[in-house]
């Protein structure tokens, strides 16, 4: 029997110890009328060899296209050591570290992770992860409403430059608590959040302003001005950032005079493969004064009976298993294994390596954008400086072009922005990380030119 070690003799002895005749007798408390009749539509079991053949076929169908698509998930090189170590059974098959003495490996790693993320964002503290970037933003919004003691408002200012799907997810998660997301338009020239439009909200009562960096268009926002505006208008500020960009760009803890209140985002660029969108991990950091409003697990360093240093889950009075209906969030299982990968990734890259990955990604995207702009019928859309994505307008039907690129040439050409921004018709969001070569860029340009 797959994965069940019992021999006939074992079963006989165990049943005899229990004092029943058959395994079936052990289910005699379940009313007969409810018993399951038929699972006929579920296939019968396969051997590992047969499943291997099946899954090889399935994988082969998907292929390995050349990727110039970003839009929230980015292909970076992942050092071999990252997943070699992460999938060691001791990390891979352990549970949430409730028994601290038997979980010091995971606990110390999580403490190191918290320290790395706090430093990368220049914030005081970090939690030990949330599900993904989008749900982390939803949790940040809930947290801001709780933490803003100066305001009773349940309204949040949410720029249209924030990843559209993050806005959708946030809406889905917070709407049942009567929290309202109010849109702020973007400047059609720069691609940044429109500060003139934002000024119209001045003096109104909001719990928080969300500030993306870079924004969904890849454009770098004027974060100092936005963070200061939030302070001036007595609201908290929530930064939603790409952690890879923070090796290069000013971290949210240094924005304006005193930094933002909460930072969140998608951790995927730090060692998680694209993998059809998950598992990734959400991260969240905040100022010390808000730590008791933060959702998710937090690991602290302490000492044991002999005075020796050790690590343990702390501030658990915020969490559902202690506080139940009064918890800061319902989150329990988080994305521990992805955090393991990210911690190893950040250790391998170090401050210089991370900065060079960010820089190379920036420069490759610049090179890609400039090369594509040489093609007749392709123009840049925004004037704002960008990190590692670029917005281009094509004078052709972009949906058909993207499909042809993928289907006929195995190139993922970019993201069709009209899906979320109807005014940006035939507009492509492209990305070239450090993994793309000059030859890759040339190949894409040549193929695209032939299609126009």
């Amino acid at each position: 029997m797959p994965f069940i070690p019992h021999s006939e003799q074992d079963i006989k002895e165990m049943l005899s110890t229990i004092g029943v005749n058959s395994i079936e007798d052990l289910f005699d408390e379940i009313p007969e009328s409810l018993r399951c009749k038929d699972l006929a539509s579920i296939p019968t079991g396969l051997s590992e060899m047969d499943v291997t053949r099946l899954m090889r076929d399935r994988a082969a169908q998907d292929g390995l296209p050349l990727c110039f698509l970003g839009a929230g998930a980015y292909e970076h090189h992942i050092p071999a050591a990252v997943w070699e170590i992460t999938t060691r059974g001791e990390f891979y098959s352990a549970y949430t570290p409730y028994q601290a003495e038997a979980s010091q490996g995971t606990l110390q790693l999580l403490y190191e992770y918290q320290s790395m993320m706090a430093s990368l964002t220049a914030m005081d503290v970090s939690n030990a992860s949330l599900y993904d970037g989008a749900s982390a933003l939803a949790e940040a919004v809930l947290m801001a409403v709780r933490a803003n003691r100066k305001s009773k408002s349940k309204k949040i200012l949410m720029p249209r430059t924030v990843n559209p799907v993050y806005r959708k997810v946030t809406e889905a998660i917070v709407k049942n608590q009567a929290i309202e997301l109010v849109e702020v338009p973007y400047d059609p020239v720069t691609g940044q959040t429109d500060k003139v439009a934002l000024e119209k909200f001045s003096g109104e009562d909001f719990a928080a302003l969300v500030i993306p960096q870079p924004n969904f268009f890849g454009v770098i926002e004027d974060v100092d001005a936005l963070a200061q505006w939030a302070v001036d208008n007595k609201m908290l500020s929530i930064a939603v950032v790409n952690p890879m960009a923070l090796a290069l760009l000013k971290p949210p803890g240094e924005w304006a005079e005193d930094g933002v209140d909460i930072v969140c985002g998608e951790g995927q660029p730090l060692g998680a493969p694209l993998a059809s969108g998950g598992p990734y991990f959400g991260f969240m950091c905040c100022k010390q004064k808000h730590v008791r409003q933060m959702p998710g697990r937090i690991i602290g360093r302490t000492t044991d009976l002999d005075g020796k240093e050790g690590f343990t889950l702390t501030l658990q009075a915020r969490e559902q298993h202690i506080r139940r209906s009064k918890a800061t969030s319902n989150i329990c299982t988080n994305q521990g294994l992805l955090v393991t990968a990210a911690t190893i990734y950040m250790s391998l890259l170090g401050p210089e390596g991370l900065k060079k990955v960010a820089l190379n990604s920036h420069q490759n995207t610049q090179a890609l954008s400039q090369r594509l702009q040489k093609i007749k019928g392709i123009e840049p859309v925004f004037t704002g400086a960008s990190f590692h994505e670029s917005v281009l307008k094509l004078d052709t039907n972009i949906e058909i072009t993207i499909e042809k690129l993928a289907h006929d040439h195995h190139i993922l050409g970019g993201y069709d922005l009209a899906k979320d921004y109807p005014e940006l018709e035939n507009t492509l969001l492209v990305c070239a990380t450090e993994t793309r070569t000059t030859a890759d860029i040339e190949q894409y340009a040549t193929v695209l030119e032939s299609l126009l």
Partner: protein
Amino acid sequence: MLIFEHSHTGRAAHAQIPADTDLPSSLPAEALRTSKPVLPEVSEMQVVRHYTRLSQKNFSIDTHFYPLGSCTMKYNPRACNTLASQPEFTGRHPLGPVSHGQGFMSCMYELQNILKDVTGMQAVSLSPAAGAQGEFAGVAMIKAYHDEREDVERDEFLVPDAAHGTNPASAVMCGYKVREIPTDKNGDVDLAALKLAVGPKTAGIMLTNPSTLGVFDRKIAEISQTIHDVGGLLYYDGANLNAILGKVRPGDMGFDVIHMNLHKTFSTPHGGGGPGAGPVGVSERLLPYLPIPIVAKEQDQYVWLDEADCPKTIGRLSAFAGNAGVLLRAYIYARLLGREGMERVAEYATLNANYMLKRLMDKGFEAAYPNRRATHEFIITLKREAKELGVTAMDIAKRLLDYDYHAPTTYFPLLIPECLLIEPTETESKETLDGFIDTMALLLEEAKTDADTLKLAPYSLPVRRLDDVKAARQLDINWSKKA
């Protein structure tokens, strides 16, 4: 030693760093970082050695018996990881076209169907990232259902006192008030109390069956009737699905919505606290509200259903399609097991639990519900030992670690004093169970003869009992702040 303490300015894992580039003029100077983040400056070997050694400080299924109740710590087949880690799967961009995703999507489509059939529901969405997000999705769907019928007076959710903490927390996240329902002396929901609690304000109930008390609620049909009669709906917490897989289906018990913890029942790894996957299944009436995306089959092609296809959906809960890689592992596990294997999961998990319960009782331990069948797990209570010998469930749990066993779940559910919730799972052998039982007997003896030794355990782990009060009062959660 922390990884930071291995740092040496100027040291790096050079093979991992891309070629030099000059800072480009295209980035405005005021947007740039000037401070260096405190990240380790170490060699590749130092990283590998440091984290390999850290891993060795963990207990895990691969190294230890891990009978953690309500967590279903069973063997995670290696094939699931290997096959889900093929480059075409790990390299697939989530926004890539369906033409480059038919292999992955076919797995998701078939997984939806397998989960639907094994739970007796009408449709499944795979998108929730973990059990708690599945709970949120389920309660949000129930709210959407009542809202659409303009049945807006219903502002209460009923939750038994034995429920997981996530249940009340999820109901509150959906804007509900929580009303707790007591448990009767046999471990079933107190039906009389339930009947008094229900009414026009009842939006629904969240139930785990078998419950966290390790018993199957025999009156489930009557509970279902009671809730449905007042217009409420039933939510099934699938944390204990391992106990009944292929034996009885939540859909047949009358549940309107369920979540499954694939990281429990479908043996995807727990990863030291995730990732999980918490797909939701629904009955006919909640079908329009399922979270998106969902995979559908149109002619011969698999496609994503989105907002346009599902206008009444409660929406999206993650940026893409949930924890796709976890779902792939669960699919592979389901294909390895097949339907006959699923039924065996429940059978041998239940056999192991009942065997352990009987033998532990024979050794002198007190069962919380001695007259009930154990499901896949059971509770023993040490309230007598606590009173007479001053030895608590925590002491036994910590001492077990010295004997190389991970502790059972302690102090949960909250209504049983000094409890250990023990779940062996189907993948453990009789010898392993016997070894654990003999050790428990030894500890009971130790409690009587040398309680002081127990109270200060463990002794043989990397650390001894930790000062949790100090951890919370003198908060040290960020090393870089001190650096």
